[in-house]
């Protein structure tokens, strides 16, 4: 299938009072048309920043995209000015995003109609009435009952799950090519999480869009994503198809991540193993592998050589890993 978006060597840094934070440090990945991929990693590993960088939504200062290319429909998105016309036509029009916090991601003082019709007016040039009709259709499509009327409500009249439904409807309203879901269900309870993921994948399939799920929850990913990228400390440490990563994880971090997630298909009572230590502080990091202090497989080479690049594993798959050790 054709590649829709290709990110190469993306580097996003934050200039803070305490030092330089390399939040995203040379990340490359791609997404095909109508594909669902997942970017997995723990809090602060740079997975959200890598997505916000695509949309050029990094607050500057302190943040800055210092290097890389983001190829989308034959153009490098990073050549566009952050708030220029070209970038704005991509944002919400071609690439849309659903954020982590449904409770705070909608403007509390504007009705849903005003918030939902905005992008329809900008990107599809709709008039007020037409946009309203379309917005309330979308609201019903994401399962808001009585959408005709409830579109005049304010966000505080909706629950968290409903607000996230609204966010999904809003994001998909202009038929984007890519929907980025940045931890879309983290703030919600488990049953709502499942419903929303189903809804999101359904809607994305209906709109023939691609989906990027950003999450720290491997369980979420397993069912929906065709390919996975595992991030640690601003870099991708392992990538491959779901089958490859869940079947034969190769990076010590991925192995450790899987060991601490319970699985329903397990027969014996396996003990869950937490990852020892703490996620690294991204300020002024040493050039060696960032997982080294927590790694049970570490060798002398790991301590002396710089952090290895991703290398393709043997076989005809798409399995890449950045580790010296053959686990």
């Amino acid at each position, binding site marked *: 299938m054709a590649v829709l978006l290709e990110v190469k060597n993306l580097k996003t840094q934050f200039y803070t009072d305490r030092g330089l934070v390399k939040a995203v440090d040379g990340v490359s990945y791609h997404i095909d048309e109508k594909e669902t991929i997942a970017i997995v990693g723990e809090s602060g590993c740079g997975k959200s920043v890598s997505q916000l960088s695509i949309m050029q939504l990094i607050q500057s200062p302190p943040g800055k995209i210092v290097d890389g290319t983001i190829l989308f429909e034959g153009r490098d998105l990073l050549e566009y000015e952050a708030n220029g016309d070209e970038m704005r036509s991509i944002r919400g029009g071609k690439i849309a995003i659903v954020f982590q916090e449904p409770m705070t*991601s*909608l403007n*509390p003082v*504007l009705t849903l109609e005003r918030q939902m019709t905005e992008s329809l007016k900008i990107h599809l040039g709709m008039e007020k009435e037409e946009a309203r009709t379309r917005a309330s259709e979308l609201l019903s499509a994401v399962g808001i009952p009585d959408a005709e009327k409830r579109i005049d409500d*304010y966000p*505080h009249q909706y629950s968290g799950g409903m607000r996230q439904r609204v966010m999904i409807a809003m994001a998909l309203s202009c038929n984007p090519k890519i929907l980025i879901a940045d931890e879309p269900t983290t703030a919600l309870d488990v049953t709502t999480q499942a419903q929303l993921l189903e809804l999101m994948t359904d809607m994305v399939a209906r709109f023939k869009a691609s989906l990027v799920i950003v999450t720290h929850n491997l369980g979420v990913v397993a069912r929906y994503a065709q390919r996975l990228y595992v991030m640690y400390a601003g870099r991708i440490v392992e990538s491959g198809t779901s089958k490859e990563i869940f079947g034969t994880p190769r990076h010590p971090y991925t192995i450790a991540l899987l060991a601490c997630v319970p699985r329903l298909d397990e027969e014996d009572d396996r003990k869950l193993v937490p990852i020892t230590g703490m996620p690294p502080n991204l300020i002024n990091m040493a050039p060696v592998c960032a997982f080294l202090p927590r790694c049970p497989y570490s060798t002398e080479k790991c301590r002396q050589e710089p952090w290895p690049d991703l290398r393709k594993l043997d076989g005809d798959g798409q399995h890449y890993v950045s580790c010296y050790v053959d686990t």
Partner: protein
Amino acid sequence: MGAYIIRRLIQAFFVLLIVTFLIFIAMRALPGDPILIFLGEAETESTTEEQLQELRKEFGLDKPIMVQYANWVIGVTRGDFGESISYGDDVLTMIAESLPITLHIGSLAFILSAVLGIPAGIICAIRRGGNIDASVTLTANLGICVPVFWLGILFIYFFGLKLQWLPIQGYTSPFDDFWLSFRKSIMPVFCLSVFTLASTTRQTRSSMLEVIRQDYIRTAWSKGLKEREVIARHVLKNGLIPIVTLKGFHVRLLFGGSVLVETVFNIPGMGRLAVDAIFNQDYPIVQGVALMTALIVVLANLLVDISYGWLDPRIRYQ
């Protein structure tokens, strides 16, 4: 909303009662005697104790304080604010003559501080850390520190005496001579608005910055809105809530400031009426002015609360 406003008005009634009562007591607790001040030193010598008692009786000052207050309240409900001890004029008429002057200068200052301060704060917030932000913030900080009377005297010296650009004192109604009125009001209005203008700018800047980093603003950006649309539609309405609070507070400050400005620029407004009355211990005038000021402040606060509801639906629906 209707029930809410009625409840607030009832509250306001009690506030007025308490405020005027406290002023009533405070004025009478001050040393001195309004009658003696009225008569002046020379005449006091030649006035007998009986004549003094007579005068006290005439103004009702011989009765117990509680009775005096009750009489005053009853009078006010009938529209009778009493007579000035030192001038003998009807207090309500005196207020009716001076209040519009204070309102004229005060409202110009209020509007100036909002019309300049809010956009200035917005620009600072958008261009945070830039040259405009740095210089406006510095100026605003200076504006907060500058004493009004000092600035007024400086202006009079510089623009009035040295450059002779502007008339240095007095007041002319805009209905009599608009141009002269305008020229006369420039310095007082500017002096009066310096603090409120500066604090409006600072408050706007900080509340805009607070809103700009909210998640829903990131959502607004993610839709592809223009910066102008993000600011005007999404940031401003949220950021206005603390500014409205501040502007309500400014109504009170402007009345306080008018005392100084009217004294420095010799404007016959309610502020100066109050100052003169306090010096003369002219109880009825002080009472009347206090009541008027309290009434306006209470109404301004009510307006602020109603605006909250308009700005924030979460308050409206409670």
